[in-house]
């Protein structure tokens, strides 16, 4: 869904590196001699933030996990996921959550193999979002008398 990426480099810089950052990001970096065809040494990332469960307390939400196709099959994805789990453990978080597209079988299998549970299937949870005009309308709704 590349046409849905609306953010700019400036916003990422402001939102991620201020006093109370809105996200944390782990990068996977390779040595210069192993760089990608286009010359990149940063070949993967995990972007996460802290959320709150009223049932269990602080949790970690893994928003993005990605490794460039050229560098897959080397355990980089697994290591990034482990590192995020380590952060969750250090911060005494009770859970690590993420969302996956239903057709993304390799990712669904990857997480299931490590013990993750599909809550949409097992408990019926659906993701809901208000954005754009709908959010605007909601904010402008006339107060009831």
């Amino acid at each position, binding site marked *: 869904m590349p046409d849905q990426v609306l953010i700019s480099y400036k916003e990422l810089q402001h939102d991620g590196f201020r006093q109370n950052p*809105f996200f944390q990001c782990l990068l996977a970096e390779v040595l210069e001699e192993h760089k990608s065809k286009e010359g990149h040494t940063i070949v993967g990332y995990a972007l996460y933030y802290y959320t709150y469960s009223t049932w269990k307390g602080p949790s970690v939400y893994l928003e993005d996990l990605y490794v460039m196709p050229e560098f897959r099959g080397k355990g980089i994805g697994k290591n990034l996921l482990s590192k995020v789990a380590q952060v969750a453990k250090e911060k005494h978080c009770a859970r690590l959550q993420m969302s996956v597209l239903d057709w993304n079988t390799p990712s669904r299998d990857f997480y299931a193999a490590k013990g993750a549970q599909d809550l949409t299937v097992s408990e019926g949870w659906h993701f809901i979002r208000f954005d754009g005009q709908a959010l605007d309308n909601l904010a402008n709704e006339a107060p009831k008398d």
Partner: protein
Amino acid sequence: MEYKLRKAEPRDVSDILRLVKELAKYEEMEDQVMLTEKELLEDGFGDTPFYHCILAEIQGENGTDDLKVVGFAMYYFTYDPWSGKQLYLEDFYVMDKYRGMGIGSAILKQLSDLAMKTRCTGMMFVVAENNESSINFYKQRGAEDLSEEEGWRLYKFHKEDLLKLAAPAEE
């Protein structure tokens, strides 16, 4: 009956926990609430709050000066790398007896006001698919069901698997 919306304060943690448990009961998962008042206090009112809370309060029924907390919304900020900050609504509940008065709508409006003011590009939450009245409430107001429309599924690692995942890799 008049009501007032206000920001939660440290003294409100027992009311917050009471309503959290009532909502969990409504979701048929009451036994899953492990959180204590002490944790709610540390996590919400310490140096780095993990959550924020809006409360709905009404005048006590017997005409006394007692105020009663009858609804709440707990939220925090998350991040969508595609469009930026999001307001994530974790819990949203009005006691059964006080529904139909516009309290839920007023809370949602205040949250969306806040989302716009803080430059959030969206407001997100999860709803159980069997919770038809909530789903209708949101859809009537323009919300999208991303699980249905785009195929997103929510995944979770429980603590035991989290610990296994966090174990250092074998050399």
